[in-house]
């Protein structure tokens, strides 16, 4: 088939890649084969630009049960036969075009990744990025995405417990919607997504197949432009009710009848093509699918439309032949369609039939061998100058209390209650620490354990120095988990960048991956799953480099959990750094961006020291010394203490604390590796100080909680004023109550 440039552009395949495909096949592909290859060779499915870099990640460890990339999500051993699986995935491009359905189907997709492994999803998180809310289109995208996440998660009955949202002009036309899911279950119920056993049937379960989402994987692999609106048909529509039935049926299958099946795989990007081909590749088998047996939602669909449809809420089950009827009966009892659409073969080919005709036949090995590109990297030339900017030359803050209230009410720091009160965050009665704290904490029922989950990434730090900024993302996610008392154990990531064919972007990608790897190695938290989303660009430019980190932590005794809520009479201390900080501590900070309108300075982190500070908090908590803990991040010490006061509904008198001569650095600087903690009495404080001295970590006494004012050096604000600023921030920005 002679192929024209327009066709190649439509499927986002380059002429060279087309020639490579012809060479591997030793013939021209037909339309179906070309569509399948283009989908699996897309950036979204094939990781053409990032896979070679993944080897830098530490991926193994004593708790890791799955080989990285081998299954749909990473699995972690929790002890006593329990395991956790978790993964984060992007749905950026669909959400830019159709925010409600884009976000909703992002949630649906990540849920299927988890229950495809036989585990019950117990928590959802969403890491979101938008342009500032003073723009009407950004408000539309933001409220649409929040509604879509709620609309799907609330209906399906899995709590949405956390995540983060940040606003920056760089995300204006291209929001980021990264959904993460955590599932738990028994190790013996873990399922594989492989198509083992030639002769075993392939059973398609769930929704009928329609034309929605065709070429979605391809769409996700190109930049957004004015014509992207016309790609609206590439955005799928979710049916969370169907998902709930699929979830229950699949978990029942895994928990009660795992021996009936060889494999279970979700249908995501590139639909039946990727699910069947990847399952066959895992098992070293082939597949033979008859598209005429695929139940359709609409008439007249061609074989490539059936094979590439991204209709949601579908699963591919590979039962053992002798249990086919059992499996069909189980799904039908859950009132789901289940149909045999093909079978596993031993020939290593993907053979696609349409009734009696062979519509396409292509080696699995060709489809799963996308071209790999070495990134051509170049360090952005302005980085050194931006890092070298003399922040001390900026005027120091003159109204510390006013600046604190402004930060607390700002879009990037204000309370997220407007968001999470629209999400059911309590269903399944396991949410021990709800949204609003550092990390969510989910009780593992039937045990004393709990799992902490958090997502993080400060794209400004990554932009200023990608390797350091990415390491800071891991550090902050780990601090969040530590702040609820849990030990960080593993990471999932979602790598959101612009066009990798641009050398500056390529540099961000490469350096970020190295930074994530540095930090994960130091913290002993292997990367067990993840996803890359490139081409996050509009004609106005690329998004901030945003390698979002999802961290899993384990707390062995749920009664030892911590929150930022300080109690009246508690002594409050700063761990990890002296109180006085130079202006340089403002590097990449929210204060610098909002007050001075600049993103500058040199981000810095000492990973070994960071690990020591985290260990200190965990050790102190294990000894029962702490009553509260909070990580220092956006807005620095002053914002962290305000949040502690609001959580505990108390004031704090740290008026006598000597914050040095640079107010902005001490109050609002965002130096890494710091916590605020609280202790109940002088004995606990002495024990904490002794422990800190052993590990070489600085402890600074700030003051005692009580009263109804926060005093911190020159800052003096009533808790009521703090609350009004903090709680009113997002509603004010949205112009709604």
């Amino acid at each position, binding site marked *: 088939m002679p192929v024209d440039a327009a066709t190649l552009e439509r499927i986002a395949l380059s002429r060279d890649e087309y020639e490579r495909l012809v060479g591997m096949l030793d013939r021209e592909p037909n339309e179906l084969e070309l569509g399948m290859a283009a989908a699996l060779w897309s950036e979204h499915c094939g990781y053409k630009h990032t896979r070679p870099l993944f080897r830098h990640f530490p991926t193994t460890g004593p708790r890791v049960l799955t080989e990285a990339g081998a299954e749909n999500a990473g699995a972690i051993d929790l002890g006593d036969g329990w395991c956790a699986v978790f993964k984060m995935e992007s749905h950026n491009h669909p959400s830019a075009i159709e925010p409600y359905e884009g976000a909703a189907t992002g949630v649906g997709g990540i849920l299927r990744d988890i229950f495809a492994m036989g585990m019950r999803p117990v928590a959802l998180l969403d890491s979101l990025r938008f342009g500032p809310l003073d723009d009407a289109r950004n408000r539309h995208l933001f409220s649409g995405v929040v509604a879509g996440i*709620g*609309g799907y998660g*609330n*209906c*399906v*009955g899995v709590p949405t417990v956390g995540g983060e949202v940040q606003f920056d002009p760089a995300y204006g036309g291209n929001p980021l919607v990264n959904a993460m899911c955590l599932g738990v279950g028994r190790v013996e119920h873990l399922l594989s997504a492989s198509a083992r056993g030639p002769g075993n049937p392939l059973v398609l379960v769930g929704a009928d197949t329609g034309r929605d989402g065709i070429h979605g994987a391809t769409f996700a692999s190109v930049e957004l432009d004015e014509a992207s609106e016309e790609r609206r048909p590439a955005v799928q529509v979710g*049916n*969370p*009710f*169907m998902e*709930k*039935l699929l979830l229950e049926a699949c978990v029942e299958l895994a928990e009660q009848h795992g021996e009936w099946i060889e494999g279970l795989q979700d249908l995501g990007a590139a639909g039946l093509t990727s699910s069947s081909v990847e399952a066959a590749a895992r098992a070293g088998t082939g597949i033979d699918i008859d598209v005429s047996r695929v139940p359709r939602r609409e008439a007249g669909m061609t074989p490539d439309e059936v094979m590439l449809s991204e209709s949601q809420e579908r699963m591919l089950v590979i039962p053992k032949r002798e249990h086919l009827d059992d499996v069909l009966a189980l799904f039908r009892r*859950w*009132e789901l369609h289940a149909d045999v659409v093909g079978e596993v073969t031993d020939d290593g080919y993907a053979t696609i039939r349409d009734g009696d005709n062979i519509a396409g036949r292509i080696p699995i090995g060709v489809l799963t061998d996308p071209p790999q590109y070495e990134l051509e990297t170049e360090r952005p030339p302005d980085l050194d100058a931006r890092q070298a900017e003399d922040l001390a030359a900026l005027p120091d803050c003159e109204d510390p209390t006013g600046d604190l209230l402004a930060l607390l009410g700002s879009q990037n720091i204000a309370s997220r209650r407007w968001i*999470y*009160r*629209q*999400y*059911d*965050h*309590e*269903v*399944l*009665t396991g*949410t*021990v620490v*709800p949204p609003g704290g550092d990390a969510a904490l989910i*009780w593992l*029922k039937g045990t004393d354990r709990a799992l902490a989950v958090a997502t993080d990434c400060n794209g400004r730090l990554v932009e200023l120095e990608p390797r350091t900024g990415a390491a800071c993302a891991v550090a902050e996610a780990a601090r969040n988990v530590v702040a609820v008392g849990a030990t960080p154990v593993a990471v999932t990531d979602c790598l959101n960048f612009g066009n990798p064919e641009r050398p500056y972007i390529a540099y961000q990608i490469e350096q970020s991956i190295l930074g994530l790897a540095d930090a994960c190695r130091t913290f002993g938290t292997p990367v067990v799953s993840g996803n890359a989303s490139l081409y996050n660009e509009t004609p106005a430019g690329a998004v901030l480099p945003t390698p979002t980190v999802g961290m899993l932590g384990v707390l062995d005794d*749920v009664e030892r959990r911590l929150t930022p809520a300080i109690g009246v009479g508690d002594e409050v201390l700063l761990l990890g750094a002296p109180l006085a900080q130079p202006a340089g501590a403002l590097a990449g900070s929210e204060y610098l961006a909002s007050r001075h309108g600049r993103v500058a300075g040199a981000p810095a982190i000492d990973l070994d020291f960071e690990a020591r500070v985290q260990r200190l908090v965990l050790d102190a908590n294990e000894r029962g010394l702490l009553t509260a803990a909070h990580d220092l991040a956006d807005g620095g010490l002053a914002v962290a203490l305000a949040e502690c006061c609001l959580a505990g509904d108390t004031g704090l008198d740290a008026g006598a604390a000597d914050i040095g001569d640079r107010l902005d650095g001490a109050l609002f600087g965002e130096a890494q590796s710091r916590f605020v903690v609280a202790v109940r009495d002088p004995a606990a404080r002495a024990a904490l100080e002794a422990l800190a001295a052993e590990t070489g970590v600085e402890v600074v006494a700030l003051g005692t909680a009580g009263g109804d004012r926060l005093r911190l050096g020159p800052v003096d604000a009533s808790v009521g004023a703090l609350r009004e600023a903090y709680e009113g921030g997002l509603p004010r920005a949205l112009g709604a109550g």
Partner: protein
Amino acid sequence: MQAAIVVFPGTWSDGDCVFALERLGVTARRVWHRETDIGDADLVVLPGGFSYGDYLRCGAIARFSPVMQAVRAHADAGGLVIGICNGFQILCEAGMLPGILMRNASLQFRCQPTHLVPAEHRSPFTAGIEPGRVLQVPISHGEGNYFADTATLEMLEAEQRVAFRYCDADGRVAAEANPNGSVANIAGVLNERRNVLGMMPHPERASAALLGGEDGNAIWASALARVEAARAA
């Protein structure tokens, strides 16, 4: 006590109800909506969720499920029935309770703590709760805005069939404490015989200190005591 927890396609509070009831020593059994026999249950629970995806209207399809005949027969025989959230919506759609649940006044889903005060003390679900006690029980719904016409409301008030009202932490029934726009701050209502309760808040979630409170147990415990007393008599 034996409880039957009805599971419709799309129900998701069934596990939470089992969790809460088992902690109180109740034997809880799930009953799939196609079953027509609920066994010898003392209490039937219609849990929260999105039965049939809320398609058409919340609860409008579930009321036709085969199990509903058995639920109705159980209620007609004086057995206890509690519908929570979507279960309340189903009971209203089935005509077993008066009124309807409209979209929240905010037009948004709301998951948040609320405070409830019992508005009567004669039903099996409230008799065991000390008068004036304020219960902290969360809501989680998009359509919990209770409404009934004036005649129905007057009848409900005259017959003291409002079971719970939303209030503030001090027990004041105030507009600011109303999370969804429900008329007269109504959070739960009873049928004429007082053996069928529908309520939007989720007592099964307020079932353990670890989860932030266990005030919801007071409602289950009240029903449990009534069943035990009836059995002893």
